């Protein structure tokens, strides 16, 4: 296991840009393919936006922890991302799937963010631990030659 990044942000939407720029920097060091980098950025953007916008019932300042590390060997390497927040209990895995086949008129405008995360990541794991939401995401790395 190789720790890549570990940071704490406050529940302010402006903080997301900071997370993204740190991820961009890390992924050029690893380096990650454009595809994987984009999947990670997008997932973090969607999940953090959700937590910050809907996760809190008060106006206090809260901390959200973001950890990113690598696991596995040559052919099966993974990026693992863990998000921990003390907001209201929210398990994205229990959210109803968006129905992509609905005609435009009936299509729901919301819910796409979580759907994207589920599609872009290889594994999602949720647990409620000590009044905190702990969400772990796993993404397989592609080698450059694989296509």
């Amino acid at each position, binding site marked *: 296991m190789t720790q890549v990044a570990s940071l704490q942000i406050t529940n302010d939407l402006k903080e997301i840009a900071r997370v993204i720029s740190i991820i961009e920097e890390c992924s050029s060091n690893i380096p990650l393919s*454009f595809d994987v980098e984009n999947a990670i950025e997008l997932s973090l953007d969607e999940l953090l936006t959700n937590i910050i916008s809907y996760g809190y019932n008060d106006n206090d300042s809260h901390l959200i922890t973001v950890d990113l590390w690598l696991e596995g060997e040559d052919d099966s390497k993974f990026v693992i991302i863990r998000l921990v927040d003390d907001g209201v209990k929210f398990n994205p895995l229990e959210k109803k799937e968006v129905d992509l086949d609905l005609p435009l008129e009936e299509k729901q405008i919301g819910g796409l963010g979580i759907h994207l995360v589920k599609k872009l990541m290889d594994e999602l794991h949720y647990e409620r631990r000590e009044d905190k939401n702990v969400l772990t995401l796993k993404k397989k790395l592609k080698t450059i030659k694989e296509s």
Partner: protein
Amino acid sequence: MFRIETENIGLNKKIILSGRIDGITSSDVEKAIDDLIAQGERTIIIDLSPVLYISSAGLRIFLAAQKELRKIDGSLIFLSPPDSVQKIFEISGFAGIFTIAPDETFLNIVLNGNKNLSKAEMIQLNGLQFEILSLNSPPASCFSIGSYDKQKNSSYSLQDVVPVPQTDFNFALGLAATGIEFDDYRNYFGESVVINNNLFIYPAIRGAKVDFILEEERVKSETIKFLNGFALKGSFNSITLMKEQEKLISLKEIIAALSLKVKSNLFGLVFLAVSGGVYGMNLKKVPVISEHSVPDIFENSLFHEWFDFPVEGRYSNHLLAGFGLVVKDKSLLPDNLKKHFPRNTSTHIHSLIMEKGYLSHKIEEFNKEMKRIFNELTSLKVQHLMSDSIFKSGFFAIIEVES
């Protein structure tokens, strides 16, 4: 950085978005679309080619706008989403509710319907029959990379390496490698070609395989290490299709015919074709400096040690994909570009030689067909292509270069 521009495209309006469309910028996108709807626009084109990133905040804006527009018989049309955005559209189910035009050719067809299919016309040039589709594109910019001087003596070293960011161009050729440290890649330079952001390198070593990085696999921060060559940033001014002719046609004849339709003196040629016999050459050894001094690799005694250059045509019926520059009158060329056309040559082209295969004959599918072939077929070599090479049929696209 994020930018929004609005411009006219025929009778419609086009919004060009650049950069990131996320929770912060999506309200600007929403306003730009709402403003156009308020001004009475009904078919609105959203050019996504310079978009780096889109999150669900952006998707929501498009979905809401499409709902509004449908009520008044209008719609959004997306133009040229990059692969990363296309992928997000697909997993969001956007493909079914939006029209997505992969390029301007397709957009023209969408906007003008069948009327536009006749926009592709048949022409006869020097006795050759072509189908031609003219596109509105500004002239491309061209730049030289590195120098050819040290190839002859095999004396390239670290200081001759020119790292070029992959996003600075969409077409290029030269002697190149990929990697971070010179010591890691110094032995892997080879003939290379970049076609529409897809990179192919054939390392000049025994038993080499073609190394490639397709558009969607590019790493933003990584550069391609060139020793020499040139690059273009631009898009097609025309696409032509040559179906099988009664006799075999050389590349030289095709170029002479196409030149009649090209306005600029210097132009980029991009092709996807079926070979009738390739005359090409590639380096067998990497011309970087070593302890042995080399007098001149082009000289008779050394030539065959350094170059693979068979005298008979090979690879008949294989598919070829290539890029290069063609000059009509070399004397009009600025000195910094003359060096790309040594001796009496007026073309400098690198071609990817792939497995045998079939090509679509639908001119509007050129880009799609290229993408399919790069994804599905195995590449055997990248070679410097001689204009004596024989072509059976294929697509030939022209990129005019600003003078």
